[in-house]
């Protein structure tokens, strides 16, 4: 009998606690529902005009604007026209001042709206660029990847695409499509690393120069970030490799050299980001300041640009470390390419030491004064 009553009591207690918990839970859920509704307006601000408006509404608005632009009668329909319409709309709605992710969302929605209304496909990604953009692709025996690389580039509102082929024994030349925007340059002999990009930069006419390699395919959406960064006033837009780096103890010589160069030039915030890594973009001002010949040695161009006070940033991170095609020359510790890049960094340091002095940005406070500061009693 005693046992039974105990059990009953236990059950009753459990039930009571259960019901009370349910009640409390319900109350919490209801209140949380309210709070979520209230929080909707407190999104991080995305721009002056769009502060407080969620991305979903921006998307819908962009889609509608795109569809309206395509529905205007009389005008010709096509990607260049869409680009012009988007630019006007973005300026009017101040979408061009949004951070890149929001801008890209609007741009893609606008494109969908326009394509839907005009019944077109394979449209460009419209971008609010104030100046003309050129892309420079260097390739040597890349018939496998080159078409995909060019397909991504053609999605962007570029003024021209310059393909510099050198030392190709395969069908690289023929796989490059005939497109009014593409300029093909072909050199029978190998030019060596980064010489092709300097040649491409020399003949490019745009104010934004986007550099990529023919051996790795980077999505057009990622490349757009470099164009936008330059258009907004930066001079060097570098690929942010920091998320893909191992801890310092496991980093290779090249990464350390890159970080040291930036540090020595007074830009520790650039970490190990370098013009050596593609994709990257330069402004016309940067090319004019450092000279096309300096682009042959990317760290040298970067060092000269930083020393001469140009603005550098790393707008987006594209994982090129894993995508990079492995060859015997670029894999393993102390490989030929790595040694060449270390040499590039030494050349860059030597070049800036000529004008800035041997100690560059590091203070020239004497050892004696330093001892006074540190050990004074």
């Amino acid at each position: 009998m005693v046992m039974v009553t105990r059990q009953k009591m236990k059950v009753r207690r459990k039930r009571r606690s259960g019901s009370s918990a349910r009640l409390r839970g319900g109350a919490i859920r209801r209140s949380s529902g309210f709070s979520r509704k209230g929080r909707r307006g407190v999104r991080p601000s995305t721009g002056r005009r769009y502060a407080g408006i969620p991305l979903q509404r921006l998307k819908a608005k962009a889609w509608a604007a795109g569809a309206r632009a395509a529905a205007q009668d009389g005008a010709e329909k096509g990607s260049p026209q869409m680009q012009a319409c988007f630019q006007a709309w973005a300026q009017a709605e101040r979408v061009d001042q949004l951070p890149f992710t929001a801008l890209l969302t609007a741009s893609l929605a606008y494109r969908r709206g326009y394509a839907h209304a005009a019944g077109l496909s394979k449209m460009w990604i419209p971008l609010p660029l104030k100046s003309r953009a050129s892309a420079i692709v260097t390739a040597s025996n890349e018939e496998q990847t080159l078409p995909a690389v060019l397909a991504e580039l053609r999605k962007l509102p570029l003024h021209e695409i310059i393909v510099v082929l050198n030392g190709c024994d395969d069908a690289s030349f023929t796989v490059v499509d005939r497109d009014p925007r593409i300029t093909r340059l072909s050199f029978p002999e190998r030019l060596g690393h980064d010489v092709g990009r300097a040649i491409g930069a020399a003949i490019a006419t745009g104010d934004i120069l986007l550099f990529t390699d023919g051996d790795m395919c980077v999505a057009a959406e990622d490349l757009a970030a470099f164009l936008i960064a330059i258009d907004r006033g930066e001079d060097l837009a570098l690929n942010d490799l920091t998320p893909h780096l191992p801890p310092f103890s496991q980093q290779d010589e090249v990464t350390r050299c890159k970080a040291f160069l930036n540090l020595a030039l007074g830009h520790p915030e650039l970490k190990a980001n370098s013009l050596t890594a593609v994709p990257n973009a330069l402004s016309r001002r940067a090319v004019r300041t450092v000279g096309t010949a300096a682009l042959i040695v990317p760290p040298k161009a970067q060092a000269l640009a930083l020393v001469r006070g140009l603005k550098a940033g790393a707008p987006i991170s594209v994982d090129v470390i894993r995508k990079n095609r492995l060859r015997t020359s670029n894999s393993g510790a102390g490989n030929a390419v790595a040694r060449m890049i270390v040499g590039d960094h030494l050349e860059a340091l030597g070049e800036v030491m000529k004008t800035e002095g041997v100690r560059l940005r590091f203070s020239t406070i004497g050892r004696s004064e330093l001892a006074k500061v540190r050990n004074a009693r």
Partner: protein
Amino acid sequence: MPHSSGQLYVCRYQPPGQSYTEVYAPVLSRFWEEIDVVKKRKRPRIRLNRKPIQRPKVLPRLVNHPDPIVSIIIPAMNERATIASVLREAGLVHPRSETIVVVNGSTDGTAELAEACGAHVIHVPEPLGHDVGRRVGAEAARGQVLLFIDADMVIPARELRPFVNAVLTGVDVALNSYSGPVRGKVAHPVVLAKHVLNGVLQRPDLRGASLTAVPHAMSRTAVDTVGLDALEVPPLALAKAIRLGLNVQPVHTVPVGKLNPARGRIGKKGSRVDPLTALVAGDHLEAIHWLLLQQGPRGGYSDLGRQRGKVR
């Protein structure tokens, strides 16, 4: 047992007429009064967690050998707190040694203390810094092995002997293989500079080892080869030692990062800004500059057949 019970009885026996309270009560009351007086005075309680009282240690006087094999060089500026212990450990490193303390810019009696300990003291009135201090010490050194340590951290003699032994067995420059903290993605500027310099000197096996860090030892040949002037810029001395074909080896790890007292002022975000960082990083650039002068604008690294003439 009757015998034992009788014994017990004898023990407890009290003479009749004088009871226990009659004899002892006055004595006890006086005792308690005294206790009260003491309590009112609040005699300090004995604290068990107190540090033992620091007594001046009886230091064996250093003996500078007339014909030394090992010269121990210690630059010091205002290091009264540690110099005696540093000298005690230095004296235990090698039986035939001399200890040279380069006292520079001191105002706290470091020189007198070092002399009292028996070291050979070089006085310089103005502050020199570690590196110039080492050079001044090296000028005066007579041994075949030069061991460089600092006066602000006490390193036990058993941690110093490996450096001396390495130089005695054929190494020219014996480095501390301590590389500094390298766990994060971004290393301290000085750590980065050391790694980069060793890398461009094609000695990645040295990792972050450097002549900037103590303790390190050099042979007489090494000092003559790199020159005394180069000792004032330690990374330059290391670059010269490696490039001129000396046997440079990391021989032993002494984690000096933990022993080094924190210095410098507190900068932004509570981090410490030490002016030494910029000096050491600049020293590494000087070393790289020397390498570029020696090996051409690319420091001896190839261009992998770049056709630079194609670009106008």
